[in-house]
């Protein structure tokens, strides 16, 4: 059972940032349950086989103020995929800092190594004002760096902790399915 974590403060954003992930899992008969990040408890983490932390909108950044709610990630030993805001959460927990750069719409990004099926130049959908520079975090490997030097896809060196700054639910749905197949 996969745990999908909703980090949106605004209720209406659920439809835009969480439901599309649920739909991908539904369409591929992958089981899951959804929890608000403030309500994730020990029982949820034990029940979860994998965790996907969804993104949210450009101005819905309450989760950054509540980063302590995600401290469980550091010792969690099952696969995690952080999407956009979810990737920023992973970066912050492992000592990174928030940087400011807006990227909105389709971009071609170059994956120097395969990342859940993405290799070479791939079109991805961006929607962020913030990012974390993972190149400064020794515990992580960066699979894709954008033109502005921003880390776009990362993995922890020793753990199955992954992050993407773009939104795979828009044009790279297979990435999510491949993550769920780990």
């Amino acid at each position, binding site marked *: 059972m996969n745990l999908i974590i909703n980090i949106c403060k*605004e*209720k*209406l*954003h659920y*439809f*835009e940032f969480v*439901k*599309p992930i649920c*739909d991908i899992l539904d369409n591929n008969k992958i089981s899951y349950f959804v929890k608000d990040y403030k309500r994730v408890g020990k029982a949820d983490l034990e029940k979860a086989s994998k965790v996907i932390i969804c993104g949210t*909108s*450009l*101005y*819905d950044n309450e989760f950054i103020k509540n980063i302590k709610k995600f401290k469980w990630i550091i010792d969690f030993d099952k696969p995690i995929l952080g999407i956009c805001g979810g990737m920023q959460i992973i970066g912050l927990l492992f000592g990174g800092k928030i940087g400011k750069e*807006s990227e*909105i*719409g*389709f971009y071609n990004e170059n994956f120097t190594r395969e990342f859940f099926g993405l290799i070479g130049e791939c079109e991805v*959908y961006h*929607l962020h*004002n913030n990012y974390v520079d993972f190149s400064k975090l020794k515990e992580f490997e960066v699979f894709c760096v954008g033109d502005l030097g921003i880390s776009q896809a990362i993995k922890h060196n020793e753990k199955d902790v992954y992050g993407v700054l773009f939104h795979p*639910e*828009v044009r790279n749905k297979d990435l999510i399915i491949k993550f769920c197949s780990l």
Partner: protein
Amino acid sequence: MKLGVLFSGGKDSTYAAYLAKKKGYKLGCLISIVSENPDSFMFHTPSINCVEKQAEVMGIPLIMIRTSGEKEKELWDLENAIKIAINKYKIKGIVTGAVESVYQSSRIQIICNKLKIECFNPLWQKGQLELLSELIKNRFEVIITSVAAYPFNVSWILRKIDGKFIRDVSKLADKYEINPAGEGGEFESLVLNCPLFKKKLKVIGFKTSGSGNAFRSEVRLR
């Protein structure tokens, strides 16, 4: 939070507004852009003039801006319309009916980001048939006002979106690889009634023009 609705009068923007209200958001105003360019990728609704009647039965103020529809000019006009909504109705965000179009949604996101307001797209990436089914389930009465793709023809004009419509359009989608909810511009729609309306609108006249697989109808409502 008070929101402005980027409103075309069609099924997607009206249903997005309905979801926003259902989730507890206040609809501060409707924002409609009337483009003089029929080939505009941003604003392209044949019955856009019906939004005045729709706003009336919704009891929501309407900001209606005309644009020449030139590529960048229409974005500037949209930005100005949103600025008016922010100043006049104190909205803190925009809700749109964007489903698949990154061209449209990313441009609206950029404008909202610049103006430092929220942008909500509650239909984003939604399954096309799921969307049509939810319209019926939530008592939306919607008709088709234009078609622009093979094998649609004039017989689809003014057709109501109901169970039979979904079955018929699904068959066409399988056979001709068209989008069953019209997201690719295959057809445009007009909402005559829904839970946001205080009374049902009736078609009292229409004028259809076109040929082949492209027809549009200008509808008059009461």
